[in-house]
């Protein structure tokens, strides 16, 4: 059974599912209680579970994240909301120095079952200080799991998996897509980490993305099919750490061409990692260099027109695919 729900509702449903199931699951964050959350993800949960399980915090990211790390060490399963992922820089010390390392420090004796969630990336005119894509930043640290679901079904299924995980999970929500709808499976639809999703089957070129860029790639794939008769495969990575290398390699073995798409800045990014893995593991199958489509190397602009220019467009993705297919010259 499946029902159409928004991305926002799907996330909430997952938290409710786990809070009902496991009393150690609690929520923390700024305005998530009485107000229902800046993005209304936790709307109604304060009334349902009360102030001991849905905790409004002061504006003190390092403080409440540190408290959450401590709670997790002591057996609770906190889910912490960052109002935007940009604000997690204030809590970076707790996340990187403690959440990611305590299990290692303790020789595995102390686990940190902590989820830190919040909207990632841009697209909703929130300007440079609220529009940051942190996947490369957090993906860099061993000890952290980093996921970025794009469909409502995955948002729910991966949140279930995140809350049940004994490690700190950086849960990057597609902030611009909170209102988008999709079929969501009823009940326990836990989606395992480390498994990419083939969002569209194709044979000519592989478009690899995560987060809201997956939808961009799907639209580009349609354009490519209509205008050029190109059959593009779209891979939704879903989980960046662990990372589904096999899905990428298998797809490239089939198509021989790849375009890695990311919203974030290009340097030292996920697309670079994708390109590196392809050349390491599928070198003999490549017919063209791996193309990368990334965001502009600039702080995110506030103006709508400039913001659109700063992030990858459907056209850029389609063009990159055409380059990879040698249909057009760069």
């Amino acid at each position, binding site marked *: 059974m499946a029902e159409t729900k928004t991305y926002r509702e799907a996330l909430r449903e997952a938290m409710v599912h786990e809070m009902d199931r496991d009393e150690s699951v609690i929520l923390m964050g700024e305005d998530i209680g009485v107000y229902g959350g800046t993005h209304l993800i936790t709307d109604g949960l304060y009334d349902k579970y009360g102030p001991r399980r849905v905790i409004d915090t002061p504006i003190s990211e390092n403080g409440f994240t540190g408290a959450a790390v401590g709670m997790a060490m002591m057996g609770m399963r906190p889910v912490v909301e960052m109002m935007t992922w940009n604000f997690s820089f204030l809590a970076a010390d707790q996340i990187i120095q403690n959440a990611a390392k305590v299990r290692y420090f303790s020789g595995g004796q102390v686990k940190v079952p902590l989820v830190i969630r919040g909207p990632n990336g841009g697209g909703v005119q929130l300007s440079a200080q609220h529009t940051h894509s942190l996947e490369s930043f957090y993906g860099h640290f061993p000890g952290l799991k980093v996921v970025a679901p794009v469909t409502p079904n995955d948002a729910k299924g991966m949140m279930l998996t995140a809350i049940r995980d004994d490690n700190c999970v950086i849960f990057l929500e597609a902030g611009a897509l909170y209102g988008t709808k999709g079929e969501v499976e009823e009940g326990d639809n836990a989606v395992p980490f480390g498994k990419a999703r083939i969002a569209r089957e194709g044979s000519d070129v592989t478009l690899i993305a995560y987060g809201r860029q997956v939808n961009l790639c799907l639209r580009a794939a349609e354009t490519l099919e209509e205008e050029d008769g190109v059959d593009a495969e779209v891979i939704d990575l879903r989980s960046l750490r662990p990372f589904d290398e096999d899905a990428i390699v298998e797809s490239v073995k089939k198509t021989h061409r790849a375009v890695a798409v990311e919203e974030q800045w290009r340097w030292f990014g996920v697309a670079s990692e994708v390109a590196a893995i392809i050349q390491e593991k599928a070198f003999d199958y490549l*017919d*063209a260099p791996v193309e990368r489509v990334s965001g502009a190397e600039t702080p995110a602009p506030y103006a709508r027109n400039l913001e659109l220019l700063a992030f990858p467009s459907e056209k850029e993705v389609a063009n990159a695919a055409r380059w990879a297919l040698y249909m057009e010259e760069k």
Partner: protein
Amino acid sequence: MIMPKMGDAMEEGTLLRWLKSQGDEVEAGEPIAEIETDKVTMELEAEDSGTLAELYAEEGQDVPVGEAIAFIAGEGEEVPERGGGEEREETPAEEGGSGGDPEAATATREEERPAPSTQRTDGHFRASPIVRRLARENNLDLSKIKGTGPQGRIVERDVRAALERGGAEAAEEREEAAPRPAPAPEPAGEPGTELVQPSRMQKIIGERMQQAKREIPHFYATIEADVGELAQLRRDLNERLADEGIKLSVNDFVMKACALALRKFPMLNALWTGDGIEVHERVDLAMAVALESGLITPVIRDAANKTLSAISAEAKDLASRARDGKLRPEEYQGGTFTVSNMGMFGVESFSAIINPPQAAIVAVSSIVRRPGFDEEGNVVPVDSMKLTLSADHRIVNGAEGAQYMAEVRRLLENPMLLVV
């Protein structure tokens, strides 16, 4: 000294043999090496007098026209630095072998010499990784494939296309590996000569026959049949059938015999196709008809099941319409076996080229009266006819061909068998 261009079509020459050694004094005009081109082998003479200071090419090496093969130093002249000129950089063989241990230098040269190839390369060309893998797996020489990617990069579609051409390509490669046929000579243009362009038909026949001779491994089997009885039977029949307007030719008997014999040897009534040998049950017998503009082979369908008179009537009709150019394509296409008769021209023996994709053709010569022996050993006149089978050895083996021809002879020597 450079590799001279000894003909318009010459692209490279083979240095067969050095006649002088490094360090020898040479006189201008003195032969220093033997060069082989597509057409000739000739001696290469020194351009200047001096010391043969440096040999750049190995014996047996193919050297492109214009490339240096040796350096003759005049009085006090130094051997120039290696790899200086642009030309030199392109010559892979030159990279090794500047001074030092001569053996080591030779080894280097051997290693660096690229695989024989029509397209000169320095062994470095653009090819995508999958292309290199496909080339490895399919034993393809990438230097022969033209790239359509950026800056001529060989990409997957190029190599897939090459693999699809497969057979043809491989055949071409074999051809390239083999000594190339000499280009057709220039017309002499002397008084009393006339230049006539081949007709389109001639060109096509030429191409098909060239292809047949080149690609089909022909073997030949000749028999001699005593056709005295056949000649007698023919005279009798023609006499009695004259009122009906029927006049059987010798060739009608031969065609009937060839067609009937194919019933016992179906492998000769077969076609060589891309998917395998297609063996035909029905004999669609093609007969060669000479036209002014060339040759055509109209087909008598199901010849083995037709009477002599039917074959005769059909053959006459087809031949006359062929000469008038009034055959429909379906009347000269789809034969499974061919008979070519030159008996009427007094030819005593000949062998024909197989008409592809057929497996065989029989060449029929004239009836010649010559001395033979009867059963008592007396010399008697014999009406003898030679028939030569040309068969595709990929389809038919020698014994089968010989047995087939023996059956044809049996039928011709017992002509009543052709009437029943």
